[in-house]
C-alpha cells in the first residue's frame, strides 16, 4: 500500500555550520525521498563538503534540524540511521583485503574470533548485489581505481540501506567504469535507496538526477526538479556574481612576450602551449585536479617537464627555482600553510625570506641583517596588513593577512613574472579586493601575471585572457571581450573523459 506522500528518508531544515564563529554553510533545507537521486551542485568552496559531512555524521551541525525517516536526530549515526557515504578521497585500507575492508566496521563473529568465512560471504553478497565481480580475498591496493570505488560503495551500502551519499564518484573513473557506476545507481534507486549525488559534471547531473540543490557561498540558492530547469539556468545559479561592487580597472598589455610555453608535457598535463605578454594577466580556469597547479609549479622550476619553456625569449633547460627566481619569476603557492609560510616565525622574517641576500650586512662578513625591519614595516603598510607588530608569529594572523604577507614576500623580490595560484583562497572579502587591486597594479606596471583560480568571478574581473584546463589539457581560450562565465564553467566541467566538443 502506498500513501500519496511517502515519508522522507532524510530531511533537513535550516542546516548551518560555523567553524570558530565563521559560518561556512547556512540555510540548507531539503527533503529526500526513497528512490530519488538528488544532485548537490555548487562551485568549489560553495559548502558542498561541509554539508555532506553533516549529512553523514562526521560533523555535528551548529544549527538546524535533521530528520531521519520522520524522527528528529541531533547527529546522524550512519550505522543506526542507514546512511552511508563514499567520500571523494577513498577511505579504504589499502593493505587489507576487499572482504576485510567491506566488513571492518561490523565484523561477524566474536571480537576474539572473527568469522572469516562469514565475512567473505557478506562481502561477496554485497558485491553480488552491486552486480560486480571482485575477488574478495584480493588486497585493495591491487585493484584499479574503478574497482576500489565499487568496494567503497559496497562498504558504504553495508549500512546505507536508506541513503547513499556519493561525493564526486566519477573523477577517477574511466568511461566504461563510469557507465557501470551509473547502472549501479539506477539499480539502487529501484531498490528504494535515496542518493545524494555530488558532481561537477553537468552532463552526469542531467543524466542521473531527479532533483537538485544548488549551493553558492555556503547558502542554498535554489532547488527543484532537474527536468524543469534548463542547464544554462542551473549553471548561472551556481556561478552567480557576488563581487559586482568590486571592479578593478585593467590596462592593456604591451606586445612584448614575457613567457612562452610550447608543447609542455609531464605526468600531470599534456601538450600545453601558451604565452604571456608583459602587463598581461592570463587566467587559468578549471576544476580541481585539472592540472592547473602542476602547470604553475612547472613554470617555477618545481617539476620536471618535456617541451620548451622560454622566459624573456631565453629557453630554460631543466630550470630550478633558483634560476627562475634569477629571471624574476615568482610563485605564490595555493597552500600557504604547508608550502608557503613559516608558521612559527615572525611576519618580518616571512616577508624577507625570498630576498634575504639584500639584508645581509657587509661590515662583518655574513653576520647579522640590516634594513630587514624597516623593509618589512614598509610592506606591512603598503599592503595594509593588520598586525600588532612585525615580530608577531605569522600563524596568529587571519587568512587574509597571512596571504598578504606571502604576497608581500614575493613582491619584495620585484618580480617580472608573477605566477599566482589561488591568491584569494580562504581570504575575506575586504582582503580579496585589496589583493585584486594589487594584481591589477602589478600588471599595469608591466609584470606578466599567470592567475590560477577556482573563483570564476575573480578570473573574469582580473584577466585579459582565460585558458580553460580539463584533465591535463587546455580545452579552450577566451579573450576578454568573449568572456562567458557559463560557457567557461561548462567547458571546464564537461565529463572528464568525453571527447572534446567541436
Amino acid at each position, binding site marked *: 500500500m502506498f500513501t500519496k506522500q511517502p515519508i522522507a528518508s532524510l530531511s533537513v531544515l535550516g542546516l548551518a555550520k560555523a567553524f570558530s564563529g565563521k559560518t561556512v554553510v547556512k540555510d540548507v533545507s531539503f527533503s529526500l525521498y526513497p528512490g530519488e537521486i538528488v544532485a548537490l551542485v555548487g562551485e568549489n568552496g560553495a559548502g558542498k563538503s561541509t554539508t555532506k559531512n553533516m549529512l553523514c555524521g562526521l560533523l555535528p551541525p551548529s544549527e538546524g534540524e535533521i530528520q531521519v525517516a520522520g524522527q528528529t536526530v541531533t547527529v546522524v549515526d550512519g550505522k543506526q540511521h542507514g546512511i552511508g557515504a563514499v567520500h571523494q578521497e577513498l577511505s579504504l585500507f589499502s593493505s587489507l583485503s576487499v572482504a*576485510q575492508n567491506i566488513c*571492518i566496521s561490523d565484523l561477524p563473529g566474536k571480537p*576474539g574470533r*572473527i568469522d572469516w568465512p562469514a565475512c567473505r560471504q557478506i562481502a561477496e553478497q554485497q558485491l553480488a548485489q552491486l552486480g560486480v565481480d571482485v575477488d574478495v580475498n*584480493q*588486497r585493495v591496493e*591491487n585493484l584499479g581505481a574503478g574497482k576500489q570505488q565499487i568496494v567503497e560503495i559496497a562498504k558504504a551500502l553495508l549500512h546505507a540501506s536508506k541513503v547513499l551519499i556519493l561525493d564526486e564518484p566519477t573523477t577517477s573513473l574511466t568511461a566504461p567504469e563510469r557507465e557501470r557506476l551509473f547502472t549501479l545507481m539506477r539499480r539502487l534507486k529501484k531498490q528504494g535507496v535515496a542518493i545524494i549525488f555530488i558532481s561537477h559534471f553537468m552532463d552526469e547531473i542531467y543524466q542521473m538526477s531527479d532533483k537538485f540543490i544548488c549551493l553558492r557561498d555556503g547558502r542554498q540558492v535554489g532547488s527543484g526538479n532537474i527536468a524543469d530547469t534548463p542547464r544554462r539556468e542551473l549553471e548561472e545559479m551556481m556561478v552567480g556574481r557576488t563581487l559586482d561592487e568590486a571592479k578593478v580597472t585593467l590596462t592593456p598589455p604591451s606586445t612584448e612576450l614575457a613567457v612562452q610555453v610550447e608543447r609542455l608535457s609531464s605526468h*600531470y598535463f599534456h601538450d600545453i602551449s601558451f604565452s604571456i605578454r608583459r602587463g598581461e594577466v592570463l587566467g587559468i580556469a578549471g576544476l580541481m585536479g585539472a592540472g592547473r597547479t602542476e602547470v604553475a609549479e612547472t613554470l617555477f622550476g618545481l617539476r620536471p617537464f618535456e617541451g620548451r619553456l622560454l622566459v624573456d625569449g631565453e629557453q630554460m633547460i631543466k630550470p630550478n627555482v633558483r634560476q627562475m627566481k634569477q629571471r624574476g619569476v615568482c610563485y605564490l603557492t595555493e597552500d600557504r600553510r604547508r608550502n608557503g609560510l613559516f608558521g612559527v616565525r615572525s611576519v618580518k622574517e616571512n616577508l624577507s625570506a625570498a630576498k634575504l641576500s639584500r639584508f645581509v650586512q657587509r661590515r662583518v662578513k655574513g653576520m647579522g641583517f640590516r634594513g630587514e625591519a624597516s623593509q618589512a614595516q614598509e610592506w606591512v603598510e603598503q599592503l595594509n596588513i593588520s598586525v600588532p607588530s612585525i615580530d608577531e608569529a605569522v600563524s596568529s594572523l587571519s587568512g587574509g593577512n597571512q596571504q598578504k604577507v606571502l604576497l608581500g614576500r614575493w613582491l619584495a623580490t620585484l618580480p617580472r613574472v608573477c605566477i599566482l595560484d589561488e591568491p584569494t583562497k580562504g581570504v575575506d572579502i575586504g582582503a580579496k579586493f585589496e589583493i585584486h587591486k594589487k594584481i591589477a597594479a602589478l600588471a599595469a606596471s608591466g609584470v606578466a601575471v599567470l592567475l590560477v583560480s577556482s573563483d570564476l568571478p575573480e578570473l573574469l574581473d582580473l584577466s585579459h585572457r582565460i585558458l580553460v584546463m580539463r584533465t591535463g589539457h587546455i580545452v579552450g581560450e577566451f579573450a576578454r571581450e568573449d568572456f562567458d562565465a557559463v560557457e567557461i564553467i561548462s567547458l571546464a566541467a564537461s565529463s*572528464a573523459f568525453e571527447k572534446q566538443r567541436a
Partner: protein
Amino acid sequence: MSLKHRLSAVNWLPIAAATLVACILLSLLSSSFMSYTNLQSVLVQASVTAIMAIGMTFIIVTAGIDISVGAILFFTSSLFAKLMMDTGSYTLAFACALLCATVLGALNGVLIIKYKITPLITTLATYTMYRGMAIHLTGAQNIPVPREMGFLGNGKLLSIPVPILLLAVVLAVGLYLFNATRFGLYARAIGNSAQSARESNLPVNKVTVFAYALGGITTGIAALILLARVGGLQSGIGIGIEFTVIAAVVLGGTKLSGGDGTIVGSVIGAIFLVLIDNGLNLMNASPYVYDIVKGSVLLIAVVIDKVSVTRQQQHLLNQRAARIRATG
C-alpha cells in the same frame, strides 16, 4: 587471483628465502652447522629477540615504534632479581616482573595517544627513564639469580629447550591475535590510515595501547629467559637490543610505515640475524665487524623495500600520464 598477487601476499617469503640461502652458505662453510644441536642452539639464541620481535610487530604495524624495549627488558630483569633476592618468592617475582613489563609498555601507548607525541620521541624519553628506574632500584649492583632459574634458559622439556617452547607458545598466541581477532585487524587498519580508522568508528586508542602493552609483556617474557641464560643481573643487559628487535621485524617484511606486517617474518628475521652472527663467528671475523655487517644488512633491506615502493608510485604516475594523453 594471479600467482603474482598471491605470492606478494606472503610477505615473509623474501626473508625465508634469504634465511635458506644463509643456511646453505653456512653448511658449506662448516660441516657441523647442519647438526641438530647447532640448529637448536641457533633457535635458542634467537628466542629472546624473536619473542620481543613478535610484540614489536604489533606496534610497528600500527605505524608506531617502541625503542624503550631494551630499557623495559632491563627494568624487568632488575625487578625480578631484586624481588628474588629480597623475598625469595618465585610467584611474587614472576607476577610483578610480567605485570610491570606490561604496564611500562602500555604507558608508552597511553602517552602516545594522549599527548599525540611521535612514538619515536615518546619512547626515547621513556627509554632513558625506565633504564634510570632500574639502576635506581638495584643501586647498579650485579645480582645473581637462584640456580634453578637456569631451567628457563638452558633447561629442556620433552628434550626440547625451554626457550624454544616459550617462543613457540608466544608465536602461536601472536599469530592468533594477528590473524583471527578484531584487535589484529584493527591494528593493521590503523597503520594504514588512522584517519580512515577513526572515520570507520574503530577503537583507535584502545588498540594502540593494547599493541604497546603487548610489546611490554613479550619483552617481560624475553627478559626472564635472558636473565636465566646469563645467570644473573648485569648492568649491560638489554643495551642495543631494540636495534636487533626492530631489525628483525623490518627484515621480516613488516613495513615501518605501518599497515602491513607478518609475525612469522619477524621470527625468521630474528633467526636470520643470529645466522649472520654464526657465520661471522665461523669465519673468525673480528667482533667489531659484526655490527657493521648487521647494520648494512638492515640498510640494504630498507633500501630494497623503498625502491620497490618508489617503483610502484612511478608506475601509477605513468598510468596517469597515459590516461591524460589518451583523452587528448
